[in-house]
């Protein structure tokens, strides 16, 4: 599989390359670009069809946005309500301030169960805290059960999308991974054969492993319930067969009331997979004697979220329900796929979420990984104004970098400071247009176009020409015309 990614991608924001560099291997990989574009075009088309059939889609979006905004504005109270209700129903709630604490809590729980194996439902939050390598190092064998996650785990691949994590891998590549890792030499790449292979692999795990880890799509404060939606049913196996279930959830996942699901499940399924309803919607409350897991733990993860909550302009980031509509709509993601973002959260939401989870100490290139086209905001079912947050974070990065004296002569910074001075007075601006035309004459060819420029300009001319400055500016023309008509009037 190494040929699919051209070098193993790093999804740890503290180690990842800046976005422009991390994107390069993908941009040069025809198979990967084709896989990504094809997959998201299919999802996009399904989403567009199912959104179009809802005549009240904009009202649904407004309702979903209001529910999420209210939950986030009152997060503390709803989390406490969730804890009380979940505990009363026989669950145990743990609070984890950061990734390390969450990992330790989960490993300790598994050790108390004397469990050397654990099965998992797809959970991006567990990828955020790098749970799998930690558990493996602690002596616990982790088995992913979501089809896409099995492909990634067996292929030693990294997720590139939050709903369809193996989106960058095509059918024949899946066949290769399964054949190699399951020892099935004559496996075909027919989807039925591939899913049959996965089923055989999984069935034994479901029937023998007594502990499971899940994420959560929603936590319901009013009832203390947890909601997981999925397409395969493998998740439901993990939620029902084991004797012990551990759910890891970001603190922002809470919904105030049970009836909020009416709105949220409609917008989530349509936005995420282009379905009217998710095929499997599992909902449970604590422990039910004699039915399902008899020990149930919820680990509530902060890991930077309360710091986002404390900033009014950025708080809307926490409304996210991880549907991935933004990345499917994003023209940048369509070219780069997910790995370039150096985080388990790629695409537009990743570009705002990752640097904030990192408290702006890492991933500073991500807020700039957008052309600000606004497609993400247009499709977001909870109306997160992603471009607005991107701009806010860009300003924070610039303010950080400005304190760095080494940046003083950085061409981009120098250029923007000078431009600001020039724009402050019309005559300075006009003088700079004149000087610019003189200066660029040297680079302008006989056909009137510039084919090559130095420094920052070279980033433009590496793939595009630039028309040379015209002889006369518009304001110059306007002034000359005024003089001419004044003369004629005399």
């Amino acid at each position, binding site marked *: 599989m190494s040929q699919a990614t051209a070098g193993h991608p790093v999804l740890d924001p503290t180690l990842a390359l800046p*976005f*422009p560099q991390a*994107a*390069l291997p993908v*941009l040069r990989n025809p198979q990967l*670009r084709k896989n990504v574009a094809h997959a998201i075009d299919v999802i996009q088309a399904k989403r567009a069809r199912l959104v179009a059939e809802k005549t009240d889609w904009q009202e649904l979006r407004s309702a979903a946005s209001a529910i999420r905004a209210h939950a986030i504005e009152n997060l503390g109270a709803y989390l406490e309500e969730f804890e009380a209700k979940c505990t009363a129903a026989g669950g145990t709630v743990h609070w984890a301030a950061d990734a390390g604490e969450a990992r330790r809590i989960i490993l300790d729980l598994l050790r108390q169960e004397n469990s050397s194996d654990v099965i998992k439902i797809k959970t991006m939050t567990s990828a955020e805290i790098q749970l799998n390598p930690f558990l493996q190092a602690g002596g616990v064998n982790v088995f992913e059960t979501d089809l896409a996650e099995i492909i990634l785990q067996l292929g030693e691949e990294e997720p590139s999308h939050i709903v369809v994590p193996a989106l960058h891998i095509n059918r024949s590549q899946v066949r290769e991974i399964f054949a190699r890792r399951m020892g099935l030499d004559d496996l075909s790449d027919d989807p039925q054969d591939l899913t049959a292979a996965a089923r055989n692999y999984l069935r034994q795990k479901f029937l023998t492993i007594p502990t499971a880890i899940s994420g959560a799509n929603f936590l319901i404060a009013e009832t203390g319930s947890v909601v997981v939606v999925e397409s395969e049913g493998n998740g439901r196996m993990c939620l029902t067969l084991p004797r012990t279930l551990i759910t890891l959830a970001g603190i922002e996942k809470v919904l105030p009331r049970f009836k909020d699901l009416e709105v949220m499940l409609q917008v989530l399924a349509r936005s995420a997979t282009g379905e009217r309803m998710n095929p499997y919607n599992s909902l449970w409350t604590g422990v039910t004697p004699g039915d399902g897991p008899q020990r149930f733990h919820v680990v509530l993860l902060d890991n930077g979220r309360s710091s986002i909550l404390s900033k009014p302009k950025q708080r809307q980031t926490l409304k996210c329900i991880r549907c991935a509509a933004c990345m499917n709509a994003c*023209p*940048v993601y*369509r*070219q*780069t796929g997910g790995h370039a973002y150096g985080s388990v959260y790629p695409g537009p939401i990743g570009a705002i979420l990752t640097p904030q989870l990192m408290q702006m100490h890492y991933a500073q290139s991500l807020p*700039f*990984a*957008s*052309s*600000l*086209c*606004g*497609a993400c*905001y*247009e499709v977001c079912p909870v109306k997160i104004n992603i471009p*607005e947050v991107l*701009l806010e974070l*860009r*300003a924070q*990065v*610039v*303010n950080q970098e400005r304190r760095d004296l080494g940046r003083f002569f950085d061409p*981009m910074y120098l250029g*923007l*400071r000078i*431009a*600001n001075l020039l*724009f*402050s*007075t*019309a005559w300075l*601006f006009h003088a700079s*247009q004149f000087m*610019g035309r003189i200066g660029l004459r040297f680079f302008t060819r006989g056909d009137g*176009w510039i*084919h090559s420029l130095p420094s*920052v300009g070279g*980033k*433009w001319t590496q*793939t*595009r*020409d*630039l*028309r040379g*400055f*015209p002889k*006369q*500016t*518009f*304001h*110059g*023309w*306007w*002034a000359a015309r005024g003089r001419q008509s004044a003369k004629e009037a005399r």
Partner: protein
Amino acid sequence: MRASLFITCYNDTLFPETGRAVVRLLERLGVELEFHPGQTCCGQMHANTGFRAEAFSQAKRLVRLYQDTETIVVPSSSCVAMMRDQYPGLIDELGNESLRKDFAALLPRIYELSEFLIDRLGVEDVGAWFPYRVTFHASCHGVRALHLGDRPYRLLAKVRSLQLAPLPNVDRCCGFGGTFSVKNAEVSSAMLAVKLQDVVSTGAEFCTALDNSCLMHLGGAMHRQYAGMKTIHLAQILASTEASPAEGVS
């Protein structure tokens, strides 16, 4: 009707023919056009690159410059989007009450060119003639920030001898994004390559738009690749008549 033209910094410098076309077009339609000589930039480049203080100083300058102006016409959808979407936040954060009031009074008087023609002047047929096959690139800011909708198409439909070729994936970004095009030059170029395929597939001779920044990006690639197409701002098509055809077409 009187209106003041805010030409924008890059049209003034790089695309004066667009400004000349706006003047010809609007004067032909009986608009008495003014041009404030003190104008420079709306601050979009600074705002989008994270230089908020600088963007604010330009926003403040623009609001003060135009505070007594009846109507402003801007032949650039992204600059209008800057004023509508970003000025309020910048002024809230860095401005005072008097600036806020002046801006609130100015805001409804700012029109993007196609808005001005259709919403203010109430014309769709501007008497234009442009005998070419043309495809229209709906710039991101025009579609998603200004919600221009079918305005540009209604204008194009009335241009004599013009053959409109629909652009596949019409609302997908061309990859310009201001400083994005140099900060993320490779990703921007990949987006441009995909866009150019769609544009070339229309078989049009011209690609038009309401924003010269997208057209500078697309036109730069067309020239580099000998794509056999040109870009032209919609104002230039609308200004073009049989008696006085558009500049720089052949």
